[in-house]
């Protein structure tokens, strides 16, 4: 990965497995200033812990559908399958994600930037 340049406005949070991603992580990121969240995990069948990503897939699918149902813009929260060997693809996905989030503009929903209601 080190040989490739990836966009600077990404904050990477490493987890041992995509199944470690608690939905709270995603929602709190959105609440505390992230304009978009991308969750990337190993391809189904390639999990280091054999089935972690398969469990995670169900969780992520439901969360994504749920947030979009409530009215959060499509694209604020994205998921991708990605192998640890695919540095090039990572850059590509990162760029695509940023591009799509940029199109949406700065996040307004769920963001916590002031104390009191107007």
């Amino acid at each position, binding site marked *: 990965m080190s040989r490739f340049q990836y966009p600077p406005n990404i904050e990477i949070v490493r987890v041992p497995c995509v199944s470690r991603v608690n939905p709270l992580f995603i929602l*709190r990121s959105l609440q505390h200033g992230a304009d978009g969240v991308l969750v990337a995990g190993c391809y189904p069948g390639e999990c280091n812990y054999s089935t972690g990503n398969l469990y995670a897939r*169900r969780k992520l699918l*439901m969360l994504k559908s749920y947030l979009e149902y409530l009215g959060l813009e499509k694209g604020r929260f*994205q998921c991708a399958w990605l192998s640890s060997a695919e540095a090039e693809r990572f850059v590509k996905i990162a760029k695509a994600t940023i591009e799509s989030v940029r199109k949406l503009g700065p996040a307004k929903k769920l963001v916590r930037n002031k104390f009191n209601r107007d």
Partner: protein
Amino acid sequence: MEKIEEKIREIAGKLLKDKKVKLIIGFEKGTLPLKARPTFVRKPEEVEKLIWNPFCENNLAVYIPFYRRYLDNGESIGVIAKGCDVRSLVLHIQENIAKREQIFIIGIPCEGILDRKRIEKEAFPGEITEASEKDDKILVKGNGFEKTLKKKDFLCEDCIVCSHRKPVVYDELVEGDVKETEAADRQNQIKEFESKEPDERWKIFTEEVSRCIRCYACRNACPACYCKECFVDCSKPQWLGTTVDSETDLQLFQIIRTFHLAGRCVNCGSCNRACPMDINISLLVNKLSVDAKRLFNYETGIDVNEKPVLNKYSEDDSNEGFFEEH
């Protein structure tokens, strides 16, 4: 109704006499019109107070985690359970709160629970001081006011779309047969909401939750919410702000609590009925059940030997919405 009540008392009395169960959880008459309330029977002579009517709105499975001390001692608990209560009990069994043989399910085929709040609003701004029900009608009286209402117009939102009115698992089934609802009708509220624009949906959602006073009645009335430490009470790490004047904390509370019920909610509507600020929580949680069915063809609380939907996987699960190369 009387017949059902008689039967309940007979079964309950016998269970207690034979010492098959330590306790029976059922309903008794409440102190207000339109209200029945949970009751706990330990002696055979007390079964007379057990009642059954369409005002029995609570999901009695919520009490099972409170009686861990009984369950740990290997004792059994009897529950008078309608369709949704049974499914919550199944969930408890799936999640190892209790063993199947420790819960004696007295199943009641349910014709739907009446929406007390909606009936009360018929009298708004006045109040209902007397209510009775017979066949398909409800008679309500108030100060200088009397009305006969049709039951089918005042069923709870969740009961209208209920898919399992008849208990799916039981040890004794109280007589009576009910017709299940048509599958097509089950998503009324959801479909209508989905047809709106995202920003409109977000606005409605925000308006609803902005009334939240964080009394956590929804959480405590929910049979699936039995975590020892709820994420809202957690201080290390503190997941959520504690105030009510920050809109996003209220949104987050509702999103996360309901998402915690993904594939675990049986759509009993207890949270809705418990909410003192009339927040439409069903609108949120019902979507999760619809999704569980759509994405994984799963319904909560049907089979005691099955695992909850997020505790299992299939290699063929959809990759809907995952990044794809163009």
